[in-house]
């Protein structure tokens, strides 16, 4: 028994680990069933109450309800994060490959472009479509052919072509970074779960948005021009009374709805005098989730937990709440959350003027740098003449007030205006580190310089096709297993059933590894698992055939098993290694779904070898040890 113990423990550990890693997936499956059940109920209720509601509106309401259900159950979210990631082809969603349009950028960057320049640019653009050469270098080459110096359109007269080309290439890289930040910002706001935004090559951006219901909206999010605004932050004296009123309105509504169980509330009131957290939430529903940063109330910013954000949106959408908020102000969040002490992300909530003081079009340049005297990072920004004039008036009239820098509706920074800025050339200090300053630079530029992107490839899978694919995949896997398992038992009797047991373990291990390493399961990935089931028994077929041969020479079963395994190793490794090689190449070559296939194929080879060689061997050894008879058919 002792010689078996180590292998047994090894197998149990792997299987146990897989089960542990797969548990969230199972939990998530149950959760989403629950959620969709309650969502259909809500949808029906809304329809019954308001039969004339348009599909668009209904969808919006249902989506926001779903968001609030999900954010109210932290365990729902954690299960979702830990489950086996499904590819876009299974859960529906959108896959986009975008490329920064350098030609458009060059058109905007050139100073006084004339017809000649535009013609050359057009030629260069046409050429770039069929070659791998960069538009900038094609343009430079064409200009040279025509004996035109680059400095006629870019930079200053003293700079030579090479330097200008270098700078233009930098501008291009900049534009890609900017486009990524703009996209990330909007995607975050749209609330897509598990989005993926990646840079590919020098100027491509690959965006994956799972589970997008209204893909057109997403597309719009990705392509529209970024809007940068400067908005004045309302001071506490103005904002806090409004927030108080919102709180009161919400509290009174809450009381109405809990009228039915008034008795229990009353009982609790007598038992505890002090305001517990629960009590506080009941009496101050707004302040309970939007906690003022400054207890003395000198500034009106509030911290909101990430999970409460959708609740705030819901509050602010209510008609009775809208009534108490003046028309000329609005609440907005900041773009990036800060990590709170208890590990949860917090967003800052600002109250700002609805009308922007200035929009980003006036900015001509922005740069993040280190202040020579203090050594701390800062961002400088320049404006054109018209902007500078406005800016001077705004800063002059609002000294000591804060001005929020808002990109596409979220705040990136809200510096205090210290003095009147007459020339438009401003310094923004207070960035915590260079990364933050760099981000602010990107944001400021985003308002000024466009980052035009073209969509090169776009694939959208509707949720219904994804659902169909999942059920087809699962059905194929079940049928495939059934057929292979029956055949193995039929042909190899008892030994065949060992192989079948090993096969289940293989599938379990594949899924466990996928969950553990955050691999993505796609439809071709499921096909890879199904295919693995067919191919995985190969190892056992080779061994069983060999055992039969050895038995024929008159060996005992124990000796035959030993020899059978020993003589099969080389053939087994040979027959798996080439498939593994092609798996690696496939992974390199393919995108999304194909990578999923390559992944399950490779994991399948490794895990099936483990279970066929270690697990089946263990069963054989155990049976031999106990003296059971083994039928190899």
């Amino acid at each position, binding site marked *: 028994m002792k010689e078996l113990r180590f292998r047994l423990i090894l197998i149990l550990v792997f299987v146990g680990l897989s089960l542990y890693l797969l548990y969230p997936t199972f939990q998530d499956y149950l959760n989403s069933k629950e959620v969709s059940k309650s969502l259909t109920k809500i949808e029906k209720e809304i329809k019954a109450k308001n039969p004339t509601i348009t599909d668009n509106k209904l969808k919006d309401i249902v989506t926001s309800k779903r968001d609030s259900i999900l954010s109210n159950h932290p365990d729902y979210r954690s299960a979702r994060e830990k489950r086996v990631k499904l590819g876009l082809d299974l859960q529906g969603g959108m896959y986009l490959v975008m490329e920064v349009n350098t030609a458009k950028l060059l058109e905007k960057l050139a100073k006084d472009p004339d017809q000649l320049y535009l013609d050359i640019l057009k030629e260069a653009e046409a050429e770039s479509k069929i070659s791998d050469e960069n538009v900038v270098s094609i343009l430079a080459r064409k200009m040279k052919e025509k004996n035109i110096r680059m400095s006629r359109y870019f930079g200053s007269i003293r700079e030579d072509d090479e330097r200008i080309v270098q700078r233009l290439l930098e501008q291009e890289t900049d534009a890609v970074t900017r486009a990524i930040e703009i996209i990330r910002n909007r995607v975050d706001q749209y609330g897509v779960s598990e989005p993926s935004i990646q840079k590919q090559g020098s100027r491509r951006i690959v965006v994956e948005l799972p589970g997008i219901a209204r893909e057109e909206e997403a597309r719009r999010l990705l392509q*529209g021009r970024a809007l940068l605004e400067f908005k004045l932050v309302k001071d506490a004296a103005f904002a806090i009374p409004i927030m108080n009123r919102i709180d009161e309105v919400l509290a009174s509504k809450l009381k109405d709805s809990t009228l039915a169980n008034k008795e229990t509330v009353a009982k609790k009131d007598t038992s505890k005098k002090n305001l517990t957290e629960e009590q506080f939430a009941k009496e101050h529903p707004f302040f309970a989730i939007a906690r003022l940063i400054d207890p003395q109330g000198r500034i009106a910013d509030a911290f909101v937990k990430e999970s409460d954000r959708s609740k705030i949106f819901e509050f602010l959408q209510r008609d009775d709440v809208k009534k108490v908020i003046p028309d000329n102000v609005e609440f907005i969040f900041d773009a990036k959350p800060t990590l709170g002490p208890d590990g949860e992300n917090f967003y800052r909530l600002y109250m700002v003027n609805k009308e922007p003081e200035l929009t980003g079009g006036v900015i001509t340049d922005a740069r993040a740098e280190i202040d020579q005297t203090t050594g701390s990072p800062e961002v400088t920004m320049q404006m054109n003449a018209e902007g500078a004039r406005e800016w001077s008036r705004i800063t002059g009239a609002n000294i000591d007030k804060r001005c929020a820098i808002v990109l596409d509706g979220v705040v990136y920074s809200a510096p205090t205006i210290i003095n009147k800025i007459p020339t438009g050339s401003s310094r923004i200090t207070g960035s915590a580190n260079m990364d933050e300053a760099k981000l602010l630079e990107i944001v400021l530029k985003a308002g000024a310089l466009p980052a035009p992107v073209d969509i090169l490839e776009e694939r959208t*899978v*509707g949720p219904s096709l994804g659902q169909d694919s999942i059920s087809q995949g699962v059905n*194929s896997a079940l*049928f495939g297993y059934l057929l292979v398992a029956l055949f*193995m038992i*039929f042909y190899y009797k008892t030994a065949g059933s060992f192989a079948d047991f090993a096969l289940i373990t293989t599938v379990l291990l594949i899924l466990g590894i996928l969950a553990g390493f955050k691999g993505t399961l796609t439809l*071709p990935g499921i096909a890879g698992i199904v295919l693995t089931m067919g191919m995985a028994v190969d190892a056992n*077929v080779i061994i069983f055939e060999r055992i039969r041969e050895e038995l024929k020479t008159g060996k005992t079963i124990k000796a035959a098993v030993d020899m059978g395994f020993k003589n099969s190793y080389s053939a087994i490794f040979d027959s798996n290694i080439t498939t593994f090689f092609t798996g690696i190449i496939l992974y390199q*070559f393919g995108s999304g779904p194909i990578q999923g296939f390559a992944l399950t194929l490779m994991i399948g080879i490794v895990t099936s070898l483990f279970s066929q060689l270690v697990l089946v061997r263990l069963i054989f050894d155990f049976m031999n040890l106990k003296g059971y008879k083994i039928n190899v058919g």
Partner: protein
Amino acid sequence: MRLFENINIDFMGKRTYFYFVSGFILLIGLLSILIKGLEFGIDFKGGSEVAIQFEKPVEISYIRNVVSKIGLGEVEVKTFGGSTGVLIRTPLQEIPTNVLPVVKSRVENIISSNFPNIEKQEIESTVNSLTYSFPNDSTAELVSDKLFAYGFTTTKTAEEVAKSGIVVKLGISDWIKENLSEKVKDNKFTVLKEDKVGPKVGQELKRDAVIAVILSLIVIMIYLAFRFKFAFALSAVIAIFHDVLITLGIFVILYGMIPGFNLEISITVVAAFLTLVGYSINDTVIVFDRVREQIKIHKTLPLEENMNLAINKTMSRTLITVFTTLLTIIVLLIFGGEVLRGFAFALFIGMITGTYSSVFVASAFVLEYANRTKSKVTF
């Protein structure tokens, strides 16, 4: 139960017949590739494609008729999945400029007929979209909903210029959807998937696919060069070419012959080809392995007999493994759905030719090589 036990077939002696069989299939396949040409999917060709699912079965010819009249030129229409699914494809990326005014007037028609006397202002008109602004938010929302109901996709602008503006997207798929929802009123549909691949990406994918196939061949050559001597490596690679070409040929021959069976070269099909390259070599390696073992045991026997012995001894394993693998592939073919059909079919053909070629192409070529050079084959 034991099948194929103690079989003793003179495989090598019959190799000439099988040269004819292989040659015949290869010839027909190559001829069809030359005549019919490879049918590439949207992945490699570029273009736009929409798959939609109706609630009730539809007449495919009717859909074809509707779609052919909307100014998109040559549009391919075929079934997708069952009788309720339709796949519409065009090589175009965006609506041609000569059709654009038609689309635009259609949009404006919808607005003016549903909302007479509405004040609207055109802000922007591009190949991809139309932007209008309206006096206030609620009107914009109403118009947006109406256009959406007609099949157009709309979004509200978030830009300061027009807080009450809407953007109407004018894509190929939108135009198709609008026309279908107008012409096929009693049968609602949902969009299953939408793909748009630019010509540049298509070219790149094609290049990548070729690189991947060549790379995998090189890797296999290197591996075989380590395991066996030159004659074996060469024969194995010839066998791979044989398998890939035959599968490709059968793809082309059967393209369009079976209704509802989408046999075009897509990325997933290329993935299947790569898989079968890896798989087809397995059987060959196992047979060669056994040949090597046989040569060691029976040093005096002629190569042909040793090969026959090796093939006969491995036959049982080969056939059983192929059988279980084919079982799962057939399951994928039947239950895997439209998306996996081409993939499973390529594997199905590939597995069969892969097994066949390990005996009648790879092994036979080693024998031919040995006979030609009259040299003793070493490993």
